[in-house]
């Protein structure tokens, strides 16, 4: 199971979503699908309709910046972060 850490600003959009959640997934896209199954609508907040990770969201897998298609190992750590944005 991959361990996914969610940013606080995303947690606040889905009341009850924990800081850290474990998912069975072979890629970042599958991990996001699993999150969306548990919290419907979460995919749309992380990904756009291209589909791609949103421009101001960063996803790191095992410490490396990842894309929608990055593969996951069974024990991968996935960190979703809000990038610098706004004014």
């Amino acid at each position, binding site marked *: 199971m991959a361990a996914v850490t969610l940013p606080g600003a*995303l947690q606040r959009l889905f009341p009850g979503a924990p800081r850290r959640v474990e998912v069975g997934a072979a890629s970042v896209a599958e991990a996001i699908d699993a999150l969306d199954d548990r919290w419907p609508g979460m995919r749309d907040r992380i990904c*756009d309709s291209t589909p791609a990770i949103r421009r101001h969201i960063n996803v790191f897998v095992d410490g490396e910046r990842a894309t929608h298609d990055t593969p996951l190992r069974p024990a991968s750590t996935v960190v979703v972060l809000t990038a610098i944005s706004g004014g």
Partner: protein
Amino acid sequence: MAKRVLVLLGTKKGAFILETDADRRSWDLRGPYCETWPMNHVVGDPATGAIYGAGGNEWFGPAVWRSTDLGVTWTHSSAGLAYAAGEEPIGSVWSLAPGNGALYAGVQPAGLFRSDDAGETWRHLNGLRDHPTRSQWQAGGAGLILHSLLRDPGDDQKLWVGISAAGVFHSADGGETWEPRNRGTRADFNPEDQRYPEFGQCVHCLVMAPGMPDRLYQQNHCGMYRSDDGARTWQSIEAGLPSSFGFPAAAHPRDPGTLYLLPLNGDSAGRYVPDGKAAVWRTRDGGATWQDRRDGLPQKNVFFGVLRQAMATDPLDQAGVYFGTSTGAVYASRDEGDSWQCVAEHLPTVLSVETMVVEA
């Protein structure tokens, strides 16, 4: 029956609600709501009491927010609110029009969506996306945004939209097909011999006269206009106003001849109120003559603007009139615009103002 009067504010950093009673003298402010997302348009559906917010967040993308308890709690959804894979994704939701069990949403890049389940899920109406002139549409300063969205209260198939800077379009089939309706409106930014094109005008705000769905008013980047034939033709009503430039317009709740505008000093002069003095301009005769209303508005060193969706009226007798400024102030009139008071200040930039009156 006692009433609760709500003024719904969309701002650059969240939704806010100003609330008062029918006397409209003492106001309370609540918010920020919607997780401080930029909220382009916050509207109420008086038939259900629901409040909807249109917005988009740099991190999390576009969504429509909904509150069924007058703003205390909110949910959000964008299920179906998307273009096809590979197309430019939707950046933000810009306009909402609830009523008759349906909710329409205009988005950036310009397109129209419909929800039949109070904003839970959305369906794309392809007509604007597939319009034969689409490839020639130019984006305005805020992007290619569908910011004005009107529905004929007596015919659910009839819609009008305003798109910056594609112009006004009309649909008679619920949004499936559209025709441009800009005849008589100028595009001063075009070469001299191309200033009255079929489309490509920079409409800033489109409103409908009460009880006369074929009477529309528009504030354009290049002039103020009235149409009495459902936007097929437009007549200039800018004579007597201090400028041909501005963003918002607000129709009276009952009198189709009364309109409120807030002209600014021009598109290249700062877009402030003229001469550093704030005024709302009111016509009682469909734009033939205008009166400036200043009582209670600041008259020295005023350098704010008012954006395209940031002025509204309420349905009470006498009608209330409201506008919110780029500097985060909200002004209210309880006497049809004759006198004004500042009812909020120090808010984020105000993007939209709407009203809803409910029984207390």
